């Protein structure tokens, strides 16, 4: 398999605090990769660097063979990188359907009318069809998380970055969400998923990466990574069934 997304020697510091420290990572086409790490380990910053919300201090980001390190955020989305935010950023004054249309009409590079059908499909896939005409500001937390995912899918991404999408949900809701994410994967979308709820992650991903203080602590088969004593030490308190 060839890597669709890779980062090489990526670094970012805020003042004297090094948040991402010469980080390397590669995502194969069609793969689902999980990222775990304690709070403040640099997971969200890594996402912000990959999507172009933040400029890196050093290193390169490659997507589908192209160097996108200096590409603005909206062009990275159009190239095929979709993301969801840890704290949902819904377009509150727009309907759920319109939220998706923004992704369809800009991120997917189609005309608005041409993206209608795909947006309807995504609404059904993510279980939001009954909320299509509701204002996004009126949604519950689970629906907002689903909207984050649905909007990103409307851009027809090749890689989907999910930032703690299961956080704050009940067990039942997590199971539904995991099923949806599995379905998205089945459609050929590669996934990078940052999550604290490890059992949710374990049921989807092929490979697990552990970050601590901006560096890669371990990576590989999810179960083997979880069983690594060094990982258990930094991640003390996680329950693995």
């Amino acid at each position, binding site marked *: 398999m060839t890597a669709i997304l890779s980062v090489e020697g990526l670094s970012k510091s805020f003042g004297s605090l090094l948040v991402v420290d010469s980080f390397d990572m590669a995502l194969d086409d069609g793969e689902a990769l999980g990222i775990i790490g304690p709070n403040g380990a640099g997971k969200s910053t890594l996402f912000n660097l990959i*999507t*172009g*919300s933040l400029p890196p201090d050093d290193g390169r980001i490659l997507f589908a063979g192209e160097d996108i390190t200096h590409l*603005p*955020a*909206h062009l990275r*989305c*159009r190239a095929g990188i*979709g*993301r969801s*935010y840890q704290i949902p*950023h*819904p*377009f*509150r*004054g*727009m*309907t759920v*359907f*319109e*939220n998706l*249309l*923004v*992704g369809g*009409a*800009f*991120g*997917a*590079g189609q*005309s*608005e*009318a041409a993206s*209608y*059908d795909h947006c*309807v*499909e995504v*609404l*059904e896939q993510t279980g939001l*069809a*009954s909320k*299509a*005409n509701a204002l*996004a500001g009126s949604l519950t937390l689970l629906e907002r998380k689903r909207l984050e995912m649905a*909007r*990103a899918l*409307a*851009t027809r991404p090749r890689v989907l970055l999910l930032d703690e999408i299961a956080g704050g949900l009940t067990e039942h809701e997590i199971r539904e969400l995991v099923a949806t994410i599995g379905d998205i994967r089945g459609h050929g979308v590669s996934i990078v998923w940052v999550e604290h709820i490890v059992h949710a992650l374990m049921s989807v991903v092929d490979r697990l990466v552990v970050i601590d203080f901006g560096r890669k602590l371990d990576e590989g088969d999810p179960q083997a990574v979880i069983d690594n004593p060094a990982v258990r030490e930094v991640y003390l308190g996680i329950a693995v069934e």
Partner: protein
Amino acid sequence: MTSRVVHSTRASRIGMSVAAVLILVLLTVPWWGDRATMRLLVEIFYILALAQLWNLLAGYGGLVSVGQQAFVGLGGYLLFILVIFLDIGTIWTVPMAGVLGAVISLPIAFIVFRLRGHYFAIGTWVVAEVFLLGFAQVKALGGGSGMSLPIAAIKSIAASRADRDATIYWLALALAVAVIAGIYLLLRSRYGLALTAIRDSEEASRSLGVDNFRAKLLVYILAAFGTSAIGALIYITKIRITPSAAFDINWTVTIIFIVVIGGIGSIEGPIVGTLIFFLLREPLAPYGTWYLILLGVTAVVVMLKAPKGLWGLFAERFDIALFPVQRRLLLGAVDKPG
């Protein structure tokens, strides 16, 4: 898939019919209205158009400018420059001032767009002050004491006073209708999606492929175009221009008051705000200071009690939109696959 997407609602179809009738009635005013009524209506039209443009800028583009008087004054001075030095027909200066204002706004945009939030607001104000000081230096334009339109230029609008008044009236009405229709069509287009998205979250719109900078630049240039054209019209009605009046920050203060009390981020809001502004002003203006205090109190109360403005309060309670920009998905056919 047989899903269908519609914009219109029952309220909006009624609203459109009422608007069409209202425009037809307004068109006939020069045949039966007196001079004072027409003058008042002209003022309402241009203030309404200015408010709509500021709402597009701030309510959708997130560009809270307090320096739109730069373009009101610029449009006004362009009228005098075009008429006196280039011998252009007075009425034609209105579209020309719009185009020139848009061109001049481009370099300004590249300066003020480097500033964010409050700094952007202050930056736009500074630009307007620079315009004021700059125009006051130009001897050929009368310097600080300004200048008047030559009689010949006034006569070139129409020979008789009644015809002149009617022409200016129709021009003002046409501008107001064109501004509202233009903004409505813009918001219903693909760019409307982008602008509404930017209004709600710049971060998310960027990550969904929207070029925020381009969308904001478009809005800034469109607002400059409209505001400069209206500026030329305003000074056709005023006949006399001075830098301190043309670049007066009160242009923008009035407009912000209107948009805020009416409801920012909707087309209906500035219409409601303009009506309230003139309803308060007409009977109360003679009281001077007390009138201004009342305006201030009105603004504060509305901001505290109805942050989305009076139209926002009303629209939320009754779920009504006269200018619907929302796309509704008709769900009946959604479940049938391909």
